[in-house]
């Protein structure tokens, strides 16, 4: 409780303090769903704070202090635009970053295009933000829907299962993920068929009837894209009803601590998931991050922490890469920008503005009463993206 009040106050101070601009500062704007989705944005904010501290402790951006002004969007794209406007018009930030929800990300991307501001989308997963609705000023950090679908489809194709059923939340995120997965899996395995689909409303899954309906179609394997509270309901109900017994389950995002931790000892075993096994990543880059994070926050990182941290590192990288801090100058510098993250080095591709941040894939298991990812393997993002030439064709011509 104290922590939250503390960080809220910090944000307040950050926001008001920044209004009085000082020489020797570079201000950037950041927007996220702090009040609507605190479970995911709190670790994200902590990741940002760590990166910001590291950068400024090391002398800032060529001697200038990096200042981040954070705003809440309440989970609404309209409010995100108001916040973006405030940051750009009143606070005079050089670029925008952030966003968790896809619709917020798309709204901010469109704002960036219209107002000619650089926007680094942190968490939104939708493919549209870099492809069908991509624009010159928007870049996206996180491993996208398509990339993770491709990683999961690769694993799914190795399974003997032929009959698949899908459960995904009924909105664009779920729909586009299932569509991408279907396409990619069918490409690898023309013999699979999709025998049932369920689209529960986000946050309101009626798990019993949904699982019965899936069970009735007698699938060999199930693809799940529900998360958070819906996922817990699904797991509990499915475990009790034995729906997951003798069936392969491929589950999107479930390995992220945000979603895996609440399952505790009820974590299902053997699900193929994407996620963030912070406890078993042994790379030097990650270890340094993990130590610093735990020292600063006395807590373990979630995937959001990685995203927040890497977002700020990306911001610092682009501001360092060029002295031309105009939007066009920054956008030019973003293309092909190399950034070091806890997941290794990534590149913002010049053709479609997608970063090559990868993801961990593994199976679920339980250790000490906690859900974990067993034998996680890192998948390089670049390997799961269409070639730059192909990706460029997916973007609107303008």
């Amino acid at each position, binding site marked *: 409780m104290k922590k939250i009040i503390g960080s809220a106050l910090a944000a307040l101070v950050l926001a008001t303090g920044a209004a009085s601009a000082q020489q020797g500062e570079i201000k950037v704007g950041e927007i996220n769903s702090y009040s609507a989705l605190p479970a995911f944005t709190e670790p994200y904010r902590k990741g940002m704070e760590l990166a910001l501290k590291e950068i400024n402790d090391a002398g800032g951006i060529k001697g200038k202090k990096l200042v981040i002004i954070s705003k809440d969007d309440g989970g609404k794209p309209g409010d995100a635009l108001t916040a973006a406007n405030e940051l750009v018009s009143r606070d005079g930030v050089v670029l925008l970053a952030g966003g968790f929800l896809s619709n917020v990300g798309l*709204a901010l991307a469109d704002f960036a295009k219209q107002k000619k501001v650089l926007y680094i989308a942190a968490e939104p997963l939708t493919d549209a933000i870099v492809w069908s609705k991509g624009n010159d000023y928007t870049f996206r950090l996180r491993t996208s829907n398509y990339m993770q679908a491709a990683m999961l489809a690769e694993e799914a194709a190795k399974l003997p299962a032929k009959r698949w059923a899908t459960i995904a939340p009924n909105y664009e995120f779920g729909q586009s993920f299932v569509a991408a997965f279907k396409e990619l899996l069918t490409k690898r395995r023309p013999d699979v068929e999709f025998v049932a689909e369920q689209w529960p409303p986000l*946050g309101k899954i009626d798990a019993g009837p949904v699982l019965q309906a899936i069970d009735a179609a007698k699938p060999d394997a199930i693809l799940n894209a529900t998360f958070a509270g819906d996922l817990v309901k699904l797991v509990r109900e499915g475990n009790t009803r034995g729906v997951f017994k003798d069936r392969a389950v491929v589950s999107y995002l479930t390995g992220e601590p945000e979603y895996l931790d609440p399952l505790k000892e*009820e974590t299902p075993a053997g699900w193929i998931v994407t996620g963030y096994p912070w406890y078993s990543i042994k790379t030097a880059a990650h270890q340094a991050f993990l130590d610093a994070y735990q020292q600063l926050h006395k807590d373990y990182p979630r995937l959001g922490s990685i995203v927040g941290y890497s977002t700020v590192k990306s911001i610092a990288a682009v501001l360092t890469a060029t002295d031309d801090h105009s939007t066009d100058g920054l956008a030019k510098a973003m293309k092909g920008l190399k950034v070091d993250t806890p997941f290794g080095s990534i590149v913002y591709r010049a053709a479609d503005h997608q970063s090559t941040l990868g993801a961990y894939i593994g199976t679920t298991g339980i250790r000490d009463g906690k859900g974990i990812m067993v034998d996680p393997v890192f998948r390089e993002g670049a390997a799961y993206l269409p070639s730059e030439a192909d990706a460029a064709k997916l973007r609107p011509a303008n």
Partner: protein
Amino acid sequence: MEFILVQTLSGLASAASLFLVASGLSIIFGVTRIVNFAHGAFYMLGAYMAFTLTDRWTGAFGFWGAIIAASLVVAVLGALMEMVLLRRIYQAPELFQLLATFGVTLMVQDIVVLIWGPEDLMGPRAPGFTGAVTVFGRMVPSYDFLLIALGPVVLGLLWLLFHYTRWGVLVRAATQDRDMVAALGVNQKWLFTSVFALGVFLAALGGALQIPRTTVSHSMDLAIIVEVFVVVVIGGLGSVLGAFVAAIIVSELNAFGILIFPKISLILVFLVMAVVLVIRPWGLFGKPESAPRPAAGLSIRPWRPFTPAERIAVAVGVFGAAVLPFFLGNYALTVGAEILVFVLFAASLHFLMTVGGLASFGHAAYFGLGAYGAAFLVKFTGAPMEAALLVGPLMGLAGAVVFGWFCVRLSGVYFAMLTLAFAQIAWSIAFQWVDVTGGDNGMLGIWPSTWASSPRGFFWLALGIAVVGVGILRVLVFSPFGYGLRASRDSALRSEAIGIDRRSMQWVAFIVAGTFAGISGATFAFLKGSVFPDFLGIPTSVDGLVMVLLGGIETVSGAVVGAVVYKALAIWLMSQTDLSKLVLGAIIVLLVVAFPKGIVGFLEDLRYRLRPPRANGAGPKTAGYGIAKVEAAE
């Protein structure tokens, strides 16, 4: 066959918690006539409290003790809220209690995050009910059977309580005629408090019983509250049996509906409610509401047009707004434009609520339809902003023509709920029809023409639209049409007896309000450069209600003031703190208690007190019950 049985069982289990929460809401409404928006908050508190207690007290005895204890603790909190907050505002217009409880809901959302943290919490499973029972070769969780049994048990206990205790008989009597019970010398205060506590207990129990099934999170309240309202309305307000039957109908239809239409869950309850209300306007087990308290018109201080001095003041105000762009920065101007958009939106809702006496809970539908209308024109025909602003709102008009025709056949809470149902149906179309509307990713690139693309230009555009729109609505208020409308609101009996076709007038009022909401929605689309389903969502409708009530429902210009104050406050808080809901909720609650007549109503009272208009002017007083009773008697 076996599958159907098992699916039925799953549906029944889902119905149980819905019924518990809904029965509490129904009982509270039946006696106190309070539309308790905070019911979902108590449901959520019940779950959080049960999480904490089950964490401490283990074992079967501990678990069930914790569930009951948690519900009791929350019931006490509910009783406290009733005593501290609601008792002060029973005499205020009906919607004010909704506003107050809405404020509490906002506060609770932030408070639970402060106390229990932002992460989803998973409680223990129910001891003795962790496994499954095999039914025809399929496994059904044994906890489901517990829930299935619990529904009828609670229903039976409530029946016994209401039929075999003096308290229960009083509650039933109060449900039928509150004034009668008051006349019998019953201590109404404590009757209300105890009823409220019982209702909250049931909500909290419903929440606590969810622990073994799902995680506890700070968004639980909104996930259930609307659905519960719908169940109560389908069953008939005040009818516990109705809530029971409606919960089963909704859950079973959902359980089987998803087999054929896997995406139907999103709107199913609203479809059912719309159908039920069109066929049976008082719900399945409800009785025709004998005395729908008018949403407005309780003040006896008649409206009058502006005096010349006031006209000058308004002109100065408009002029002052028009020169703001020379003094303010771009951000302030964009915020100003947003406020102006909502001024017109609130004014249109105010026209429907205050003049027409029709409190709509789904006014955002027409705002959103206007916005989507403009977006469609831009995206599919390449129309410029000017054309889209003129033609786009016609979609709001068309929606109001169709939905309004059904809605004006109802009154009071049923009218409100049918408007809500239509708004949710419109929302789910925008949300689901991805090919056309882009789903929740919305439609982007709806930017204004060059001349209005600067914050300054758009501010003037928004100001022009708001001034003309509010002006027209004000002219309408004082036109013969406005008088006729007010007449039908004041007394259905008398207006019918002097030849006023109430239904047609209200329908036209609905269309007028919908059209102006559409205009503000279309303007909003260009302000944001995009359109999203949440434009049509419940929060937008609630925002409108809050603006009208805050400004003063019984005043002519309250909506304008309410919109400016509320929107400015909301944007400022959003920008300044992550706890905007807590602060905003607290401010709403304070305003409701301090200014039950709204800001403008308060100022008018003040002016009357300082300068009574005539020697015999009897000062402001409220005549609400009198009117309602007159109509009831006939």
